[in-house]
């Protein structure tokens, strides 16, 4: 365990920014909101840098901050819907989405807590243990949600995921 220096933290944040954006975008599906989420999470990471005790855990630690920011944003969106989504000119704001019925679409249609775990597991290649730290849930809950998700996606699970 080594305490992380601010320079190491900022280097990591700059280095992996594309990954953060992709993850945020997969939650929010909106360019501006995803950019905002990344900026907010980066800002929070710097503010809370003293809370990161183990430099080796930086990825899990930051992903947790980012996922929380995205989930907060989704929750807030539920409260304030100013413009119905179909009224928006999706062409200019949204980057192209996979066509209907694709797996990516179906993943997004899952309840957010479930979709989150599926994405972290299969898009970000995180282990179930890391995911349980990120979403702050017991390992058993993570497993249950993952299998619920896969079942809904009608995907056969071959062996241990």
């Amino acid at each position, binding site marked *: 365990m080594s305490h992380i220096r601010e320079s190491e933290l900022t280097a990591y944040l700059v280095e992996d920014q594309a990954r953060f954006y*992709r993850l945020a975008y997969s939650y929010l599906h909106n360019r501006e909101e995803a950019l905002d989420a990344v900026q907010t999470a980066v800002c929070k990471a710097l503010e809370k840098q003293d809370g990161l005790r183990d430099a080796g855990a930086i990825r899990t630690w930051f992903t947790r901050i980012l996922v929380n920011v995205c989930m907060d944003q989704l929750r807030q969106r539920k409260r304030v819907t100013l413009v119905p989504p179909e009224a928006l000119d999706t062409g200019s704001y949204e980057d192209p989405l996979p066509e209907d019925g694709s797996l990516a679409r179906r993943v997004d249609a899952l309840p957010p807590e479930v979709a989150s775990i599926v994405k972290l597991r299969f898009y970000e290649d995180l282990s179930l243990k890391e995911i349980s730290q990120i979403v702050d849930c017991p390992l058993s809950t993570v497993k249950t949600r993952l299998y619920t998700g896969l079942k809904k996606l009608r995907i056969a699970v071959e062996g241990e995921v």
Partner: protein
Amino acid sequence: MNEFKEARENYDATPIPEELDQRVQAGIRQGRKNHRGRYVRRTLGTAAACFVVVLGALNLSPAVAAAAADIPVLGGLFQVLTVRDFTDADSDRTVEVEQPAVTGSDYADAVSARIQEKVDEKIAEGEQLIADYKEAYFATGGTEEGWAQHDNKVTVTYDIKSQTDTTVSFVVSSAVSIANAYQEQTYYNLDLAAGRELTLQDLLGADWVNICNAAIRAQMAAAEDPTVYFDESAGGFATVDEATSFYINESGNPVVVFPPYTVAIGALGTVEFEIV
């Protein structure tokens, strides 16, 4: 699992906006500033606590007093001390106050009364802002749960910049955590022997306006990136005047201070120029 391969490829192909890097840099700047701000405040608090201990010891033993004679803050007849230091927290907000006072003469007492008034005003203002914010938060559909996550704070602290036997320069800062715009700094440069406030003219002579302007322009031009300073035509720096804030540093030089956004981009925060 092959289906996931495709979804994954799709995911990896998410277009990355050009401004992402700028936004990450902005987040880093912002977060770093907040982190450092907290650190400085904590150190100041500790320093102030040390002074309290030292003052207590001085009253007890002449030996300690002699040993402490070269502590700058205690020079001469006059003293700057913390008269109020408290934290008051409830479910809506936290008020943290560390209020200074000057002692040693009638004039010092008058200044202390002025500080007291100012601090009280800032606390009341901060509490009002938070109350208004709370009302607006719930009026727009905020939940109790969401409100509980807010950590609203009103802070008043001070920092002694320099002190001699007869003069003292310090700043009282107040802030409301809702937004940076509520940060305010009041500088006090006192000649306690003469019983009056020091001006830039006292320090620099009759030609003080030209001396300051020349020094500030030179420092702006010498900056690593001079474009961070606003042009005069765009509302940037024009000239110093009687209302310009300053403090006196340890070397006895005046340091002219401009609040964020007045002469330079906001990212620079408060901008200072030492006039040598």
